[in-house]
């Protein structure tokens, strides 16, 4: 199905099942422990041996020699694979560094060997007997130091630079000017389930059970890496214990399970250990961001500029932190620029809302600071500079942009009017309290997505698509979509996901999954409805699917009857035309946060949070809310504690476990509210939905920073905002 004109009324609009806060259909099995994860799929892969991954002890250089003698002789060892004996390996198109390093080492904890043994303990203990001699090379690990050498990235996606009007001139002559630099640190996905895979060979056919967000990318890149035809690789990943972008790509666990299994002549399972994950896999790169805003005295932006610097391995990608600034606020003269430095740290890549999450952390503080400079309420300043068209290309309208409504509703619900405009004025016992707000913004992306639906003689519809559920609720909204389309209750729909033998879906990334994958299911169901109508000899124009029946005029038949003895199968792909070029599609929101800052210790504790979101039709308010509060929690971590600390001498993330890399715990997140504006966006898809999984993290960090400022009068422009950055400017104790 081609989607190239705005959606009109369709069966989804009935909202009998779509739009309801249905419990997750996989919830019972998740809570009962019967939803199996990759490392425990012994039903698919019998009797696997265990692989233990060895990471490089240096960040850059070469392996002079590896001595495997003792390790090979250790109890239970079946095989050891290194780059020397792995055979020829290529690199997947989405990997920057090689997944198996050696002799060249590209980053710390790059995998250099996998030891395969009968038991996990044997593999681990043998791994410690491997002796490696390294030749260290100098590397670059400090973004601030490398900033001046940063270059315009070669990319065919987003242009690194944009310019409209005369930014320099307009900024220089603006009556009120603001110019500040912000930094965000490297951050880790820190998902609960580690990267884990099981691999089994049958001749030259490989089956891997893994934990991966993007099955088709994964199967393709694994085949490429191993030099196999694409159709020899089957990838299965039905349950995923969190990804956040860290499982978009094939990582070392998959490749080393496959290589280990080939070497051992037996299935092998590999999980990355927690201390390895932080440096072995990908992370969100640190940024330095300079923001300049010029405005008239009454608060209209005349010039806005955003420059961003980040680093990555050679041939890596930039963190596109400036991109939202192209779209969020009005202003005739504008510029953005993205620069990329070469750093020899582990590979930087996508993490929940790449670009915007970091960019909004900076931009939305800057907007707050500018409002203060102008003597304007920060919400009013944002509203004053709203735009209903793409400010770089005014002929392009937003498909739907209720940012102002989000801000106003949030201000009203949160009690914004009670906020003291003067910072450092509100006290509650030992706490200085403050309120902050920020806009939320994240682009809506649509991706081609396919599904297959099968109606069986019992009247059950089974959906198959390689879409993944990374904890987001994909199973449930896909079931809701099929049920709505076919006029069935939810318990008559079975959803099977995450298998490369299924039709290729959008996958889970860039908050495109929910809208695109359900649109694919919609397309397949439209075909199935036609086939059913035809089979029953009903004219398709007036056919209604409801209550397990198919009706046309005064005729009706049970849906099961149409299935006959052999069932009916339909498959289709939703393909998106150029509506996303003609219109700017984005999701919007407003974050409100109240914090308490301990007057003595400067510890920051969040008191309550509210997000108002406008993201098209909300397919399931319960799972959507979970996505938003999860993202708000992650944003709180980014604002207050998350920081992959670099040892700039040896080039690695030092705090590489969950004791050192702190993410919020329950006690950090006392109260969260989410409001969804009632919205449908017929330009986005037949579902009229948009993404919501990433919107919730965009801007929340700045709302917290602004609340801290409101509480203390201390502006911190370097995340995370830990107490040491506030302490010497706190009021006297006692």
């Amino acid at each position, binding site marked *: 199905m081609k989607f190239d004109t705005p959606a009109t009324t369709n069966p989804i609009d009935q909202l009998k099942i779509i739009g309801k806060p249905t419990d997750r259909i996989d919830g019972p099995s998740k809570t009962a422990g019967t939803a199996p994860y990759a490392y425990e799929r012994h039903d698919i892969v019998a009797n696997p041996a265990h692989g233990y991954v060895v990471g490089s002890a240096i960040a850059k250089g070469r392996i002079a020699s590896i001595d495997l003698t003792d390790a090979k002789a250790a109890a239970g060892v079946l095989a050891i694979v290194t780059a020397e004996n792995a055979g020829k390996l290529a690199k997947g198109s989405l990997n920057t560094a090689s997944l198996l390093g050696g002799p060249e080492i590209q980053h710390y904890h790059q995998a250099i060997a996998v030891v395969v043994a009968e038991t996990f303990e044997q593999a681990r203990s043998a791994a410690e007997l491997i002796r490696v001699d390294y030749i260290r090379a100098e590397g670059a690990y400090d973004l601030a130091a490398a900033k001046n050498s940063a270059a315009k990235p070669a990319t065919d996606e987003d242009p690194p630079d944009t310019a409209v009007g005369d930014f320099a001139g307009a900024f220089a002559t603006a009556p009120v000017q603001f110019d500040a630099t912000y930094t965000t640190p490297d951050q880790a996905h820190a998902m609960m389930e580690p990267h884990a895979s099981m691999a089994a060979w049958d001749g030259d056919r490989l089956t891997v059970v893994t934990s991966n967000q993007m099955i088709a990318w994964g199967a393709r890149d694994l085949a490429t890496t191993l030099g196999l035809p694409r159709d020899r690789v089957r990838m299965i990943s039905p349950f995923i214990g969190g990804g956040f972008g860290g499982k978009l790509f094939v990582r070392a666990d998959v490749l080393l399970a496959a290589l280990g299994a080939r070497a051992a002549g037996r299935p092998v399972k590999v999980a990355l250990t927690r201390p390895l994950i932080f440096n072995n896999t990908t992370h969100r790169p640190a940024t330095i961001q300079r923001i300049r805003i010029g405005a008239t005295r009454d608060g209209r932006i005349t010039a806005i500029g955003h420059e961003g610097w980040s680093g990555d391995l050679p041939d890596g990608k930039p963190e596109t932190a400036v991109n939202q600034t192209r779209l969020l606020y009005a202003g005739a003269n504008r510029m953005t620029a993205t620069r990329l430095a070469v750093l020899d740290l582990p590979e930087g890549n996508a993490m929940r809302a790449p670009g915007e999450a970091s960019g909004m952390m900076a931009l939305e503080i800057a907007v707050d600071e500018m409002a203060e400079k102008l003597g304007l309420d920060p919400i009013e300043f944002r509203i004053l500079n709203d735009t209903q068209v793409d400010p770089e290309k005014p002929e392009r309208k937003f498909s739907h942009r209720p940012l102002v409504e989000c801000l106003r509703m949030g201000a009203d619900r949160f009690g914004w009017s009670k906020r003291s405009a003067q910072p450092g004025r509100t006290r509650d016992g030992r706490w200085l309290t403050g309120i902050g707000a920020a806009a939320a913004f994240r682009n809506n992306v649509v991706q081609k997505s396919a599904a297959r639906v099968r109606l069986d003689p019992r009247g059950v519809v089974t959906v198959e698509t390689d879409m993944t559920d990374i904890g987001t609720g994909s199973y449930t909204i896909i079931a809701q979509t099929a049920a709505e389309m076919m006029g069935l209750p939810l318990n008559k729909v079975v959803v099977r996901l995450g298998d490369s033998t299924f039709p290729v879906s959008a996958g889970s990334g860039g908050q495109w999954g929910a809208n695109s994958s359900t649109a694919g299911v919609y397309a397949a169901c439209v075909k199935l409805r036609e086939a059913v109508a035809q089979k029953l000899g009903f004219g398709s124009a007036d056919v209604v699917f409801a209550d397990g029946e198919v009706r046309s005029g005064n005729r009706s038949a049970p849906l099961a009857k149409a299935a006959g003895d052999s069932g009916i199968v339909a498959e289709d792909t939703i393909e998106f035309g150029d509506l996303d070029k003609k219109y700017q599609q984005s999701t919007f929101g407003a974050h409100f946060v109240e914090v308490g800052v301990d007057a003595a210790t400067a510890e920051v504790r969040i008191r309550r949070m509210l997000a108002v979101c406008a993201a098209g039709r909300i397919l399931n308010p319960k799972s959507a809310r979970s996505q938003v509060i999860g993202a708000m929690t992650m944003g709180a971590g980014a604002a207050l504690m998350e920081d992959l600390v670099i040892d700039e001498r040896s080039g690695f993330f030092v705090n590489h*476990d969950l004791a050192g890399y702190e993410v919020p715990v329950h006690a950090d997140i006392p109260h969260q509210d989410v409001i969804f504006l009632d919205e449908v966006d017929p330009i986005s898809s037949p579902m009229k939905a948009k993404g919501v999984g990433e919107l919730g993290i965009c801007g929340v960090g700045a709302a917290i920073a602004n609340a801290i400022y409101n509480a203390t009068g201390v502006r911190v422009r370097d995340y995370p905002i830990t107490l040491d950055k506030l302490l010497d400017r706190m009021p006297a104790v006692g």
Partner: protein
Amino acid sequence: MKPFTYERARSPAEAAAAAARIQGARFIAGGTNLLDLMKLQIETPGYLIDVNGLALDKIETTPEGGMRIGALVRNTDLAADDRVRRDYGLLSRAMLAGASGQLRNKATTAGNLLQRTRCPYFYDTNQPCNKRRPGSGCAALGGFSRQHAVVGASEACIATHPSDMAVAMRALDATVETVRPDGSARSIPIAEFHRLPGDTPHIETALAAGELITAVTLPKPVGGKHIYRKVRDRASYAFALISVAAVIQRDGSGRVALGGVAHKPWRVEAAEPDLPRGAKAASAGLLADATPTRENAFKLLLVERTLGAVLTEARA
């Protein structure tokens, strides 16, 4: 993890004798620290002596009116004990500020005193660390040292002792009771139990090889207000950046020990007469001769301000 032999000890004296006799033997109590370190090959004992079955899990009143806490009493049980809550509230509060409910259910009195540092370089066997591999150097010096020691550190090691419980024990003048491999018992004042790093950061306590902790005793209650203030980036389940354990009397006199600033729970008795004069005076004495790094210098101000808040709370 290296293969190891596991044995259940039958009596404290036998356990101590066995530990001294067998090369590379270690006691295991709750295992919440030791097992983690073994998995990472930081500790590599070839022999584990399980001391859980030695009936060292009682809390008793001593003839002097103090308390004797068995070495194997779980942190959860100790924190919940009525007498502890009434007379040694500091101890209960410190323990509840540490780790998580699940960990405290396993963690023991002795194991808590003996838990090892959380220096991240200690945890990464690729990095030089004098504590893990004597003579290899100290990666934290000149590296990431935000959480490290500001007083009593050496050129060889700037690690901190991570325990909350031990800080309260130090303020309460606890005594560590042991049995030695020859079967004799001894008492070690808590002040002398943990050592400063000096040139031998791998030697952390006054215990001799094989010496087993049997109990910790507390002198009779001293009254006063018991305040334990743990400062940390996240609200729970995090080690202290610094902590202040204080017992403050009505007249403003009192005692105070600090966590997160040194290789041991930090108390300077000579600074305590300054407590009635306020936090600035007292912390000047507590932190005299501090040698912070650029990354942890904030701890000096943090101690002073936190102590200030504690003294204010005590007056209220």
